[in-house]
C-alpha cells in the first residue's frame, strides 16, 4: 500500500489552512523515556506469522468484548471524505477500516480468546483449502449469510465480485487476485475487458463455482498468500442484482453489521444496524452500538481538542483514523484524564531514503549515506517517538519476520548518524566531496527534514544539491525511471502481514518501470531470483524465514535504501467509549469492538 495519497493530501491541507500553525514535527517525545516496554511487547506480538484458522475458528459469533453493552450511537470525527465505498475500489486504510463495518470478504482476521491473531473464514467456512501445489484454492460459503436486502449470498455473487474488478471503471483497488488468476500488469484485464456486464465470464479453468456454496480459484502459479489477499476490503462481496457500477461507489449494499443509511460526500455519513447481518455467522465483528454518526473535515487538531475536552457528544466520540495532533501529543499524555483514553500502535509503513542505483553504483557510497543519515532527527520532525521509531531495517514491525534489534548499520546505537564512519567510507570510495542530488517534497515537515539531511551529508563529506519537488506529484515524479535524482525518501506499507507485499514491489529488478514502486531501481540477480523462488513457497512459515534472509541480503549486501523510521499512531477516544483497542491488521482502533458505556 502506498502511503502517498493520504500523506500528500494531509500535507497540503495543513499548509493551506493552518499557515503558521502548520504541523511542525513536534519533538516532544524524542527525549521522553517512556518509549519503554509497551512498544517491545507490541512489536514482539506482531512479528509472528498469523496462522490460518480452521472451520471451528471461523465460526461466529465473535468472542465477546468484556463489559460490552448494546445500544448508543458513536460520533466519529474524520478528516477526509471516504472517496470510495465500492469495495473493489478500496485500497487506502481509511476506507479499509470503514469497510470492516459494512462489507464482508471470504476471509478475515480475528483475535482469539488468547489474544492471538488468526486468519479465518468470514463468508467462507474456513480460511480455504489448497491443492494443486498451491495453485488451487477452494472456499465454501457459510449458511445464513445474507445481503442487506435479505437475499442469501451465493457463489455467483462471489464470482461477480471478482469479475467486476476486471471492468475498466475499477482502477483504484488492489489487483493481486486478478493478476494471479489472469496475468500480471494490466494483462489480466484482457481476460474480461468489460467485466461481467456483457454476459461474459471467466472460464471455469480460472474461476469455478460448481454450486451455490463453492468457489474455486485456479491461479496460474502457487499463491500461498491467497487467503490473506482475499481478506482485503477490496475483495468484499458485491450483490450482482444490486451492482450499479460507477454509482455503487457511493451507495454500496451492506453485508457487515452496519449499513449506510445516508452519505453526503465530504460532509457526513450515518451508519445504522444491518438487520440482515447474523452474528452467528461472523467470527470477528460485533454489533453493539446502534450506529455511527460520522462527519468529515475534522483536522487532527480539531478532533484531538474535542476528544481531549471530553464534553457533550465528544464523550461518545472518537476518530476512526485521525491521530492525536503531534502538537498536542504532550498535552494529551500529561493530562491525567485524557492519557487514560489513548491507544497506540504501529502503522505498517517504513520510511526509507532511496538511493538511485542507476546513479550511485558504488555500495561504499550507499553505505556512507546510510551511516550518515540522521534518523532520529528526521523522526523528531515527524512526531517524535509517538510518530514512529528509528528503523534499523526495511521491514516494518507489523510484518511477519520482523526482527527487533536488527541493525546492520548501527542506526539504533547512533540514531543521529555516524558522520565519521560515513566520511571514511566515502574516502575509501575515492569520492570525497561527491555531488549528490537530493530531492524532497515541498511540505513544511519535509523542508525541515531536508535541512537536517543536507547537514548530515555535508558533514560526511558530500556536496549536497537540494531539489524541491511539488508534494502533490511527489510519487509520480519519483516513480519515473529517469527521475534525475540520487536521493529521495518514500514510504511503503504492507497489504497484509507478509513480506511478499513489501519485498517484491520494492526490490524486484524485473519490475523497474515508470510508475512502479522499485524507487531505488535495485536490479540484483540474486534478489530477483530469490523473489521468484520464495513467492512459490507454499509454507508460510518457511517463506517468512526465506524473506527474512533475503531482507538481510538486500540491506547488507546491496543496500538500495537507508532505513529511516517505522511509523506509529496514537489515537484518543471519548470517556464513554468502551472496547477501544488498537488493531494491527486494521492499523487503527478496531471499530467493530466498540460499545457505549452506560
Amino acid at each position, binding site marked *: 500500500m502506498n502511503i502517498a495519497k493520504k500523506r500528500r*493530501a494531509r500535507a497540503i491541507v495543513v499548509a493551506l489552512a493552518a499557515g503558521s500553525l502548520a504541523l511542525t514535527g513536534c519533538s516532544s517525545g524524542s527525549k521522553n523515556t517512556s518509549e519503554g516496554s509497551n512498544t517491545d511487547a507490541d512489536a514482539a506480538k506482531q512479528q509472528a506469522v498469523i496462522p490460518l484458522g480452521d472451520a471451528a475458528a471461523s465460526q461466529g459469533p465473535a468472542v465477546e468484548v468484556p463489559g460490552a453493552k448494546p445500544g448508543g450511537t458513536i460520533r466519529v470525527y474524520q478528516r477526509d471524505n471516504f472517496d470510495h465505498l465500492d469495495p473493489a475500489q478500496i485500497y487506502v486504510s481509511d476506507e479499509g477500516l470503514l469497510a470492516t463495518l459494512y462489507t464482508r470478504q471470504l476471509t478475515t482476521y480475528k483475535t482469539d480468546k488468547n489474544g492471538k491473531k488468526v486468519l479465518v473464514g468470514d463468508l467462507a467456512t474456513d480460511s480455504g483449502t489448497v491443492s494443486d501445489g498451491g495453485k488451487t484454492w477452494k472456499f465454501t460459503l457459510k449458511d445464513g449469510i445474507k445481503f442487506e436486502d435479505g437475499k442469501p449470498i451465493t457463489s455467483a455473487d462471489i464470482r461477480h465480485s471478482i469479475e467486476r474488478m476486471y471492468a475498466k471503471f475499477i*482502477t483504484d*483497488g488492489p489487483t493481486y487476485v486478478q493478476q494471479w488468476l489472469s496475468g500480471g500488469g494490466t494483462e489480466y484485464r484482457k481476460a474480461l475487458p468489460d467485466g461481467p456486464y456483457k454476459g461474459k465470464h471467466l472460464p471455469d479453468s480460472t474461476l469455478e463455482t460448481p454450486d451455490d456454496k463453492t468457489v474455486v480459484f485456479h491461479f496460474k502459479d502457487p499463491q500461498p498468500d491467497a487467503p490473506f489477499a482475499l481478506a482485503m476490503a477490496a475483495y468484499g462481496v458485491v450483490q450482482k442484482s444490486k451492482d450499479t457500477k460507477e454509482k455503487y461507489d457511493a451507495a454500496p449494499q451492506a453485508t457487515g453489521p452496519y449499513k449506510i443509511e445516508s452519505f453526503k460526500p465530504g460532509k457526513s455519513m450515518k451508519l445504522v444496524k444491518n438487520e440482515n447481518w447474523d452474528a452467528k455467522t461472523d467470527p470477528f465483528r460485533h454489533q453493539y452500538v446502534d450506529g455511527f454518526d460520522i462527519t468529515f473535515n475534522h483536522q487532527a487538531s480539531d478532533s484531538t481538542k474535542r476528544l481531549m475536552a471530553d464534553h457533550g457528544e465528544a464523550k461518545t466520540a472518537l476518530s476512526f483514523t485521525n491521530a492525536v495532533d503531534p502538537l498536542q501529543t504532550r498535552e494529551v499524555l500529561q493530562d491525567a484524564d485524557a492519557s487514560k483514553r489513548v491507544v497506540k500502535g504501529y502503522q505498517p509503513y517504513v520510511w526509507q531514503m532511496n538511493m538511485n542505483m542507476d546513479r550511485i553504483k558504488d555500495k561504499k557510497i550507499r553505505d556512507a549515506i546510510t551511516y550518515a543519515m540522521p534518523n532520529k532527527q528526521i523522526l523528531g520532525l515527524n512526531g517524535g517517538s509517538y510518530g514512529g521509531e528509528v528503523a534499523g531495517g526495511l521491514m516494518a514491525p507489523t510484518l511477519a519476520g520482523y526482527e527487533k534489534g536488527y541493525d546492520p548499520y548501527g542506526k539504533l546505537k547512533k540514531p543521529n548518524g555516524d558522520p565519521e564512519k560515513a566520511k571514511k567510507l566515502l574516502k575509501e570510495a575515492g569520492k570525497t566531496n561527491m555531488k549528490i542530488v537530493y530531492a524532497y517534497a515541498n511540505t513544511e515537515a519535509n523542508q525541515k527534514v531536508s535541512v537536517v539531511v543536507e547537514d548530515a551529508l555535508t558533514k560526511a563529506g558530500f556536496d549536497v544539491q537540494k531539489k524541491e519537488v511539488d508534494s502533490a506529484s511527489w510519487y509520480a515524479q519519483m516513480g519515473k525511471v529517469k527521475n534525475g535524482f540520487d536521493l529521495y525518501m518514500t514510504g511503503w506499507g504492507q497489504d497484509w502481514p507478509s513480506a511478499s507485499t513489501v519485498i517484491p514491489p520494492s526490490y524486484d529488478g524485473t519490475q523497474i518501470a515508470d510508475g512502479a514502486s522499485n524507487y531505488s531501481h535495485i536490479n540484483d540477480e540474486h534478489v530477483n531470483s530469490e523473489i521468484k523462488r520464495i513467492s512459490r513457497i507454499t509454507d508460510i512459515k518457511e517463506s517468512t524465514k526465506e524473506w527474512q534472509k533475503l531482507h538481510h541480503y538486500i540491506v547488507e549486501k546491496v543496500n538500495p535504501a537507508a532505513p529511516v523510521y517505522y511509523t506509529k499512531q496514537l489515537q484518543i477516544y471519548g470517556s464513554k467509549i468502551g472496547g477501544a483497542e488498537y488493531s494491527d491488521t486494521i492499523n487503527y482502533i478496531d471499530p467493530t469492538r466498540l460499545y457505549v458505556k452506560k
Partner: protein
Amino acid sequence: MLQFFLRRTLGAAVILILISAFTFFLFFSIPQDPALLACGKNCTPDSLKIIHENLGLDKPVPVQYLEFMRGIVMGRDFAVGPCPAPCFGYSFANNQPIFDTILDRFPTTVSLTVGGAAVFLTLGLGAGMLAAWKRGSLIDKSFSSASLVLSSMQIYFLGPVVLGALVYSTNLMDSPKYTAFTENPAAWFVGLLIPWMVMATIFTANYTRMSRSTLIEQLQEEHVRTAKAKGMSGKTVFFRYAWRGSLIPIVTIFGMDLGSLFGGAMITEQTFSLAGIGRLAVDSVIKTDLPMIMGVMLFTATMILFFNVIVDAAYAFIDPRVRLS
C-alpha cells in the same frame, strides 16, 4: 431596467466563459496528472491509460473543454449515467455529480454568510455611525482603536482561541455544527453562533472603520451643509443626507464581501470543521479533481458576478443619477 439586467447577464456569461476556459487550460498546464488520484498501487502507464480513457482525459484538451461546456448547456451522458443540464460532470475523486455536491454544500455556506453578515452589518454600521456622530469623542477613539486591533485579527487565530475559551476548556457551548434550518432552527442557530461571532468580529471592524470614514466624508459634502443651512436638525442631516451618501461605498464593499463569502469561506469553514463550498474548493484542488474545480470555480464566479449585478441594481435604487441615466 430589463435591458440593464439583460446586458449584465450577457456580460456575466462572457466572463464566466473566459474564467472557465482559463481555469480549464490552466489546470492542464500544471504537471500533475489527475488520473493519479484514481490509480491504485499498480500505477503503471497501462493503468493510467485506462483511467485517462475513463475520465475522458485521453482527448485533446480543447475537445475536453468543449465537451465540458456543452454539458453545462445541454447535459451529457457519462458511463455513470445521464447528467442533465447544467451538467458539470462527475467528480474524479468519488464519482458524485458535481452540481448536486455543490448544491448540498451551499446551505452551509449560505447559513454561515447570512448569519455572519447580519451580525457584522448591525454591529459594524452601528458602531461606525456612533463613531462618526460622536466624532473625536472617547467613544470614537475607543471604537477606532478597537477596530484597528480586531481587523488585524485572523480567523485562524481568533477561531481556535474562541473555541478554546467557550468549548474545549469551559464547555459553555458545543462545538460548532451545521444543522439544516428546516430541520431544527434552534440547533441551526446555536450550532453556528460561534462561527458567526468570530467571522463577524473581523468584518465588524472593517465595516466600523469604513462606515465611519465615509460618513465623516459625507458630512463634509456641500449638500449636507446645505441641509444644515436649511435648518434641518442634526439627526435629519446625519441620517437623511450623510447616511444616504455613504450607502454607496458600503453597498459596494458589502456586495463584494457577500459574493466571495457565498463562494465559500475557506478559512472559516476550515477553522470550524464545517463542510461548505470553501472546503469543497480546497479539497478539489488537493485532489486535482478537475470537474469539481471547474464546478466550484464557476459557482464562485457566478456568485460574485450575481452580487455585482445586485450591487449595481442597488446603486440605481440608492442614487437617482444612476437610475435615470
